[in-house]
């Protein structure tokens, strides 16, 4: 059986793994330096705020102090009169609605007639320096008429009359409801009725936010000849390019988006933000470059992070633990705008249907608008919250049936080369190996239900998409493109439209070029993130880049390689396939001793065929989804699989949970660079751990004096883990060699986040016998749960 037949490595026990001697690969699968590693460790990497242009002005945005209000009047005259102020812009200067999802454009660059959350942008100024810009904001007079604010999604949904947060799409509808999805596969009620056990549970996932260490930053430069350049810390330069042109009414051929290195994103920079429109507009008004850098507080208010989810699950199983039926009811708190919410509402249900077989499944998801900053995609978009609830449900079933939780998951394994109940096409699947790995590495059998009171282990599994088969705006063009160009020195330039946000995409394409063309890694230059000279890649979201851009890069490199092989073959009088490119040489196959430096081979090819270059592209498989409305959402060319075991200690006196270690086993298809894959796994598990124990993006209620005010918009008060908080993280890479991935690779950046949270919840139960169904598992919540379950310090140290 070949390794690329979609069933993983059935005979792979004998075949060499990538990165092992004999695999035929020289770069792929090996720990290599990153192409930008030294620039980042010497301070030379230039992020957006590190750029200063001659004559640059500084911009600031005035933000709403009210959660919900009509804008009655704005008077900017006093600000405009201030010495040093060059321009002031308000919503009416950019009155075109936009939204990352083309079907739900519901926001303006600056609010036109209504503010919908504290922090909504109202006006922007450009001034000679930051101090003057701040002073000018104080001189803008805005008259508001306050409106009732909705902070609770249930109340927003229950409203029966306006004013709603947005105008209803049709008269009589509730304008506070942004999206409802109800889908059923199989007969759920019959399945539950036939079950030996039915477990019911209510779960609450508090919202969290991305907190990249780099705040959002953008610079606009209108050159006076109609051309507009915007530098931005974005993870979606292509979508930003489109929206800037549309909203500002500039010919897209005149718009250039440059994406410098991005200092972390995690989904928080994956749609246009007010500052990008404002720097562009202010530059168009002044003829000067304009920069806006968010304060940390503004980063918290711009948000677009994980939605709070209220979830109710009913899960049925047979006597021997086989799942029969799953029923989910979900209410999502979307905040003030749609953002990616249409997709989130589908993902909330669609992505739960693997890695376990479900004969029947139903979900009903409702996304509400509320007067808080908009929620959107955060690492593991839409599926982290349901995964938490569902994996706790599985733990409850295992306990009821007295089956080992890992064993229960093995029994329900959906398999490779199959379809889920909602018709997602699963190809490679290494989930069983993930379970084996965490079971072995954690010494699970010796620990589960056997550790002293107060200590416990928990397991959870998950799946995630490797990109989406359908792009955000409908089109038939490739999702990823790349261009290669060869210099006479033997250097290969790669023009990549993909967004380097720390995940290593620039290095990934360099590894592929080095592998395919046989050049040393330091002979590859990656030029990325500039829409003026790179082909389109749709962006760094939905874990799509390695799979899609990697395949595009292989496509381009192999076209170029063919040209080189033909030229060298003609020179040597052999067949092109006998010419191999490796180790900086063109070599004749078969140990003949014939070779030449690869640079000479490139020069031969250039002499024969003209300037040497190639483009490559990748598009996703279409029509491999089910036949129902919404079936395309969740359809991915490949799915990754993960299992975690977490080991915790619970202090029953204080409710303080310490996570000692998380074992992370992840099926990434193939690790193109195992060090970078492990880094993604550890970063994901860390972020899941953080959401489990520490993080909550919450807002004050009316009772707390200031409805809709962020509770803790700083990196001190919104607690993210320091080195002292973070558990030991152990990466266990599983390789299933996906039949369609580049060298078999799938994703590694988002999947490994999912199981952290339920694994910790299940470990807490193993430690102290208390179920934690609401996030985060902070000391007060755990302490209350322990008290209401009658667990006290007196039981500490009692062996079970």
């Amino acid at each position, binding site marked *: *059986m070949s390794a690329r037949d979609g069933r*993983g490595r*059935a005979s*792979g*026990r004998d*075949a060499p793994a990538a*990165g092992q001697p004999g695999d035929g690969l020289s770069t792929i699968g*090996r*720990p*290599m*330096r*990153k192409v930008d*590693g*030294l*620039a*980042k*460790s*010497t*301070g030379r*990497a230039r*992020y957006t*705020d*590190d750029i200063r242009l001659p004559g640059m002005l500084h911009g600031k945005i005035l933000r709403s102090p009210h959660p919900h209000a009509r804008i009655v009047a704005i008077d900017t005259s006093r600000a405009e009169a201030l010495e040093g102020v060059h321009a002031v812009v308000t919503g009416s200067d950019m009155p075109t609605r936009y939204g990352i999802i083309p079907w739900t454009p519901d926001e303006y660059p600056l609010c036109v007639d209504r503010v919908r959350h504290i922090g909504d942008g109202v006006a922007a100024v450009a001034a000679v320096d930051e101090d003057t810009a701040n002073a000018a904001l104080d001189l803008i007079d805005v008259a508001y008429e306050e409106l009732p604010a909705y902070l609770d999604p249930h109340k927003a949904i229950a409203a029966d009359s306006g004013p709603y947060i947005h105008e209803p799409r049709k008269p009589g509808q509730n304008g506070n409801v942004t999206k409802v999805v109800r889908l059923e596969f199989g007969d759920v009620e019959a399945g539950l009725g036939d079950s030996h056990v039915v477990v019911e549970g209510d779960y609450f996932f508090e919202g969290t936010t991305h907190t*990249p*260490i*780099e*705040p959002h930053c953008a610079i606009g430069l209108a050159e006076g000849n109609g051309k507009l350049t915007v530098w931005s810390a974005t993870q979606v330069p292509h979508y930003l390019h489109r929206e800037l042109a549309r909203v500002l009414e500039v010919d897209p051929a005149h718009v250039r988006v440059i994406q410098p290195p*991005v*200092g*972390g994103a*995690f989904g928080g920079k994956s749609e246009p933000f007010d500052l990008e429109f404002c720097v562009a507009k202010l530059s168009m008004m002044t003829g000067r470059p304009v920069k806006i*850098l968010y*304060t*940390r507080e503004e980063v918290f208010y711009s948000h677009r992070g994980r939605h709070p989810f209220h979830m109710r699950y009913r899960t049925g199983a047979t006597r021997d633990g086989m799942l029969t039926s799953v029923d989910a009811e979900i209410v999502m708190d979307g905040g003030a705008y749609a953002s990616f919410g249409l997709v989130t509402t589908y993902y909330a249900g669609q992505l739960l249907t693997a890695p376990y077989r479900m004969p029947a499944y139903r979900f009903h998801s409702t996304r509400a608008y509320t007067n808080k900053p908009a929620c959107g995609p955060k690492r593991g978009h839409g599926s982290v919250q349901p995964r938490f609830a569902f994996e706790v449900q599985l733990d409850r079933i295992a306990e009821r049936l007295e089956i080992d939780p890992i064993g229960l998951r093995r029994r329900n394994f959906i398999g*490779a080369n199959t379809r889920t109940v909602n018709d997602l096409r699963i190809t490679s*699947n*290494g989930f069983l*190996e993930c379970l084996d790995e965490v079971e072995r590495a954690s010494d699970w059998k010796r620990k589960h239900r056997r550790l002293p009171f107060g200590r416990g282990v928990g397991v959870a599994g998950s799946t995630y998409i490797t990109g989406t088969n359908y792009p955000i705006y409908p089109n038939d063009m490739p999702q990823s493109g790349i261009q290669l160009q060869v210099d006479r020195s033997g250097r290969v330039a790669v023009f990549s439209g993909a967004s380097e946000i*720390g995940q*290593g995409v620039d290095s990934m394409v360099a590894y592929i070029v080095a592998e395919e063309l046989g050049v040393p890694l330091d002979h590859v230059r990656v030029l990325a993130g500039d829409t003026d000279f790179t082909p389109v890649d749709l962006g760094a979201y939905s874990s799509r880049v390695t799979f899609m851009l990697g395949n595009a890069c292989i496509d381009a490199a192999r076209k170029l390689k063919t040209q080189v092989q033909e030229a060298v073959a003609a020179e040597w009088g052999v067949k092109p396939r006998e010419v191999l490119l490796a180790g900086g040489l063109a070599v004749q196959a078969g140990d003949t001793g014939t070779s030449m430096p690869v640079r000479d081979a490139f020069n031969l090819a250039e002499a024969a065929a003209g300037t040497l270059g190639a483009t490559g592209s990748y598009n996703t498989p279409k029509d491999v989804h089910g036949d129902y409305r919404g079936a395309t959402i969740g359809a991915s060319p490949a799915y990754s699989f993960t299992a975690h075991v977490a080991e915790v200690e619970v202090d029953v006196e204080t409710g303080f949970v310490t996570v000692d270690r998380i074992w992370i*086993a992840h099926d990434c298809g193939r*690790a193109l660079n195992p060090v970078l894959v492990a*880094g993604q796994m*550890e*970063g994901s598990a*860390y972020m899941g751990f953080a959401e489990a124990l520490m993080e909550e993006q919450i807002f004050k209620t009316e009772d707390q004096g200031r409805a809709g005010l962020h509770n803790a918009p*700083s*990196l*001190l008060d919104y607690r*993210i883990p*320091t*080195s*002292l908080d*973070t558990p030991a*993280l152990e*990466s266990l*890479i*599983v*390789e299933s*060699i996906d039949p369609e991935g580049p060298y078999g690779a799938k994703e590694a950046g988002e999947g490994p986040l999912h199981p952290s949270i339920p694994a910790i919840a299940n470990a807490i139960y193993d430690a102290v016998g208390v179920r934690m169904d609401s996030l985060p598992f902070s000391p007060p919540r755990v302490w209350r749960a322990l008290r209401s379950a009658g667990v006290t310090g007196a039981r500490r140290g009692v062996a079970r």
Partner: protein
Amino acid sequence: MEVVRLRVNGDERVCGVPAHYTLLETLRYGLGLTGSKQGCDKGDCGACTVIVDGRAILSCITPVWEAEGREVRTVEGLARGTEPHPVQDEFDLNGAAQCGFCTPGILCSSVALLDRNPTPTREEIRAALAGNLCRCTGYAKIYDAVEAAATRVGGEARRPDGAGPGPAPKRTPARGVGV
């Protein structure tokens, strides 16, 4: 405007800055040393960490006049000529920098640690980095890099390409279940 005199990375520098400027603002906007980063501007995240008289400090909450007459060392001053500091090299080899935005501050905290304790334990490294938030890595690869550098400080400056970090993560081929 105030005229400040600083000794930065071995150079005597003079520049005029607004009186309220912090050391970070002076480095970034007065002297063009943009390696030190601003992540929060209130001493919470550690991205602005630089070394002053051998101690790692938060430059975003240090008024610039406090640094006058003292030895300031930033990420731009860690290499010896063209040779990166072993910590910088090990960050590259170990994948310890993902987005790289916290990296300059973490490097400064690490160098300050190694200068006073050349053989730190992992616990000592964790403690030394407790004021530097990293949102990408989960810190594990950073500890690996600092530990590896500790064995090299004063020795070779750059490991050869392909030397790779220590043991590569364990990898398991999937069996191809579902056949």
